[in-house]
Structures are given as structure tokens and as C-alpha cells.
């Protein structure tokens, strides 16, 4: 069973379709990248996976999207449970204006964990997974907003890991960072692949090429091509993919 299976998925804002009949399977424990020009629907599709689109008034979704075999746009589904299992990291680092510790503990607390020892343990292991522990282990009470941009983004990743998700969605999570921080996050993501299923949106074709196992190229809401990353970049089948990749590499 794939981690995520989409079938004829159409997502529209009002009458305007932003994602047009996408069918794709995302395998477990791997990194999948979505690429494509701005406005092609990458973010929309990503937000559909953990139903972050729900809060937008007139969004319409048809088709099927199954996670671990379960239809997620089912009335019976608890969105909160879904999001606990499908974590998300955003473009801009968005730590809460609380301490580092409270940022990480926020999710576990939501989901009913209150014991100090247990929380301590979660905070430590999440920060370690996000390769941030060594930098902040003595500053856990420090406001998260005092960290640098790159550190904040890793904190947000740690925060997402703290609720123990199966899938991690990342929407251009390095776009706001400098190259060195970007590199760090890329390395982190590569190590996370062994435990999590990761879906990332990126503008940066180099990044997609460097990091992902498989890659989907979107254009105007359509999934033009979806293949092993090697294959897609070396030898794209669709002419539009080829042109996009070349235009970008200059």
C-alpha cells in the first residue's frame, strides 16, 4: 500500500480549478518533490493532503485521496487526527511566540500528553531528529523567536515530528533561508526519509534533483510528468518538462 493515493483529484477555488484531475501514488519512506512554475497548484495539492484547505470558504474537492488506504475526505474522518498523522512545515518558519520547549511540547500537549518526563523525552528526541538539539539544549526556555531563520525552520520541523506523524509535508520550506541553512535542512530531510514519508514542494530544481527520490512536474494544475527523479531530470518524457527544466538550468 502506498502512503498516499490520489485518484482523479480535482481541487477548485470556486469555479476555478487549481488542481486538475491528478492521479498519483506516493510511496512510503521516501522523498517526493512537486515542481512547477508559480501558481501551478503545487501548494494547493499539498494542502489537500492534510486538509489544510478546509478553512478556505469555497474550495471544492472531487475525486479520491487515500492515506494509508483511508479516504480522508470522508465525513467520519477527524481532521485533527489526520493532521496529527500528516505533519506540515511551511515556507516561512512560524514558531509560536513561546519558549523552544513549549513550541515542541505544544503538539504532544494538544494530544493529551501532560507528564513532564514524557514531554521532556519527546522534546529531546524531536530536537535530536531535527539536528537542533546540540545547538539549543541549554536554551530550552529561550523564546523561539530569538533563534536564527534556519534554526527556526528546524525547530518547526522538530515541532512537527513531536506528534509522531507518518507523513511530513513541506511547502518550499527552504525558500526563505540562506544557502547554508538550506543545505542543513536538505541534509536533515535526507536522514528523515528513513522514518517518514516526505512530500516537498520546491521552486529550486537543484534541490529537487539533489534531494528527492521521485518528482512530479505540474503545469497549470495538471500533473505533466511523475517519475523517478533521476529519470525525470535526465530524460523527461514530456516536452514541457524538458523545456521547464532547461529554462531553469539556463
Amino acid at each position: 500500500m502506498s502512503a498516499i493515493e490520489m485518484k482523479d483529484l480535482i481541487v477548485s477555488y470556486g469555479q476555478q480549478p487549481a488542481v486538475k484531475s491528478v492521479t498519483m501514488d506516493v510511496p512510503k519512506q521516501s522523498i517526493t518533490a512537486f515542481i512547477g512554475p508559480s501558481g501551478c497548484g503545487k501548494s494547493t495539492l499539498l494542502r489537500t493532503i492534510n486538509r489544510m484547505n478546509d478553512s478556505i470558504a469555497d474550495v471544492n474537492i472531487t475525486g479520491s485521496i487515500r492515506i494509508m488506504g483511508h479516504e480522508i475526505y470522508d465525513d467520519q474522518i477527524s481532521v485533527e487526527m489526520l493532521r496529527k498523522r500528516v505533519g506540515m512545515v511551511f515556507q516561512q518558519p512560524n514558531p509560536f511566540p513561546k519558549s523552544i520547549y513549549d513550541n515542541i511540547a505544544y503538539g504532544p500537549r494538544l494530544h493529551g500528553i501532560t507528564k513532564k518526563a514524557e514531554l521532556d523525552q519527546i522534546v529531546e528526541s524531536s530536537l535530536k531528529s531535527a539536528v537542533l538539539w546540540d545547538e539549543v539544549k541549554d536554551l530550552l526556555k529561550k523564546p523561539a523567536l530569538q533563534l536564527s531563520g534556519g534554526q527556526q525552520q528546524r525547530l518547526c520541523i522538530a515541532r512537527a515530528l513531536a506528534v509522531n506523524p507518518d507523513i511530513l509535508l513541506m511547502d518550499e520550506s527552504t525558500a526563505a533561508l540562506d544557502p547554508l541553512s538550506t543545505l542543513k535542512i536538505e541534509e536533515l530531510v535526507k536522514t528523515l526519509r528513513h522514518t517518514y514519508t516526505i512530500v516537498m514542494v520546491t521552486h529550486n530544481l537543484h534541490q529537487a534533483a539533489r534531494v528527492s527520490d521521485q518528482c512530479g512536474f505540474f503545469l497549470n494544475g495538471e500533473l505533466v510528468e511523475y517519475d523517478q527523479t533521476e529519470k525525470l531530470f535526465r530524460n523527461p518524457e514530456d516536452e514541457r518538462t524538458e523545456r521547464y527544466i532547461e529554462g531553469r538550468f539556463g
Partner: protein
Amino acid sequence: MMNKELSGEHPFRSNKPRSIEYAMPVLLFLCALVSIFTTIGIVYTLVTESVAFFKEVNVFKFLSGTTWAPLIQPVSFGVIPLLFGTLLVTLIACCIALPVGLATAIYLSEYASPKVAKIVKPVLEVLAGVPTIVYGYFALSFITPVLQTLLPGTSLFNALSAGIAVGIMIIPMVSSLSEDAMKAVPKSLRHGAYALGATRFEVAIQVVLPAALSGIISSFVLAFSRAIGETMIVTVAAGATPQLTASPLESIQTMTAYIVQVSLGDTPHGSLAYGSIFAVGLTLFVITLLLNIVAAAVSKRFREVY
């Protein structure tokens, strides 16, 4: 192209004198000074007029006395009953406006669709624009009779009715300003919490509220000082009986109502009773001043940088 102006004069030197660049800051500074002069004017007026009053009435007795009867023999100038009446009405008003206003702000900013919020917010703001005199008669002719049926024994003039009306009036101050503060909390923070599986209530209370706390406190303070300073509602609906009473169902008098009473009344100017309105005004001013200073400190302490 590059050489076009290099021939003669220095290229970066302007020959136009720009006196307006020097005049404007000065002019604008003068505008800003008007507010300082206003304060000086208020303090000067209140203090000089009060000094004459305090020559005859001991300041300590004024501040600690529990009988206020400047116009009824034997006269007595103990400001506590007026203070008490003011605080009672303010407290009642805040008990209504703070929770209702804050809950409204949360609803508008976190629950309501933008369309609904766009309509509801200005509608609520009308409440703050209704002339206070209208509220006064609304309290007297509508709220009080309702209270009298619900709570037999309610006086015609009572602190509760006036407090409720003041409370209604200041709801939009709390709701609008708090909503602004909550709206200013970046969407990304909310998304962060939603993505962790938080419900809307949890996002509102645990993420948005703390981040907007400084703005919310400012709105509380503004509402509070509005309630303290409210005049016409209490003049009309709370009565003119300065007393220390445990029951909000009885008639009281507030500081502002007293000032209006005297300025519309029969007291000869220059008399001791007339001077007392300045002493009361000064007390009122000092209270709002302290309130603002405390609020500035508190809200600074809670200011989140995000």
C-alpha cells in the same frame, strides 16, 4: 550618456533651496506639541481650581471621607462614595463588556467567515457611536423596568442598569480593537497549530490570544477608562445619591454625574460646592492617568514580537 552632466557643475549638487524641508518638521512638531499643551491645560486648570478648594477642605479628609454631601446640610466632602459609585458602575460595565467583547473578537477573527465579520464588525461599532444620552434613557426606560421585573426591589435609579448600558456601549471598543490585534497575528502561526491537529478553539486560546495579548490589554484599558469617564448614562440612569451600598440595585452617584449635576444646577459659582467639581475632576483625571501608565507597562510586558 554617462558624461551628460559631468562637464560643468558637480552632478549631485542641487541648486534649489528647499526651505520646506526644514520648515515641515518644525510645523509638524508644533502639531505634536498641541497634545502636550492639552495635558498641561488640563492639569493647570484642575490644579489651580482645586487648590482653592483644598484650602478649605483637608485633602486627606477629602480622600478618605465616606460621606459626600456638598449640597445638603451639614456639608461633607468625602469623595469615597463617588469613587465607589464610579468603580461600581465601571466594574459592572467591564463584567459585561470584557467577556462579551473578547468572545465576540474571537468569534469574528477565528470563526466567522470574512464576509460575516465584515458586516458584523461595523454593525457592532454603531454601538459605540450611539450618543450616550440615548443609552441613558434606554437604561432608564428599558433596562431598569426589565430589572425591576426580574429582581423586585430594584430602585428606579440603580448602578446595575447604568452599568449594563455602559457595558453595552463599550463592547465594540473591546471587540473591535481586540479583533484588530488578533487579526494582526500572522496566519502562519495559526497554520502551524492547525497542522499539528489543534482545533479552532485551541488555536484561538493557545496561540492567537497570547500573541495578541498586548493589543487585547490595550483595548481593555481603553474600555475601562471609557467606562470610568462615562457621564450622561450615569447622570440619567444611576441617580444622584452618593452612598456606599453593597447592592448594585440601589441608586448611587458617580464622579462624572456629580460634575454634571453641579454644572447644570443652582450652586453659585465660586462657592465651596462649586469648587468641589474641580477636585472631583482632578481625582478622575489622576485615576485615568494612573490607569494608562499601568496599562502601558503591562502591555509592554506582554508585547510579543512575531
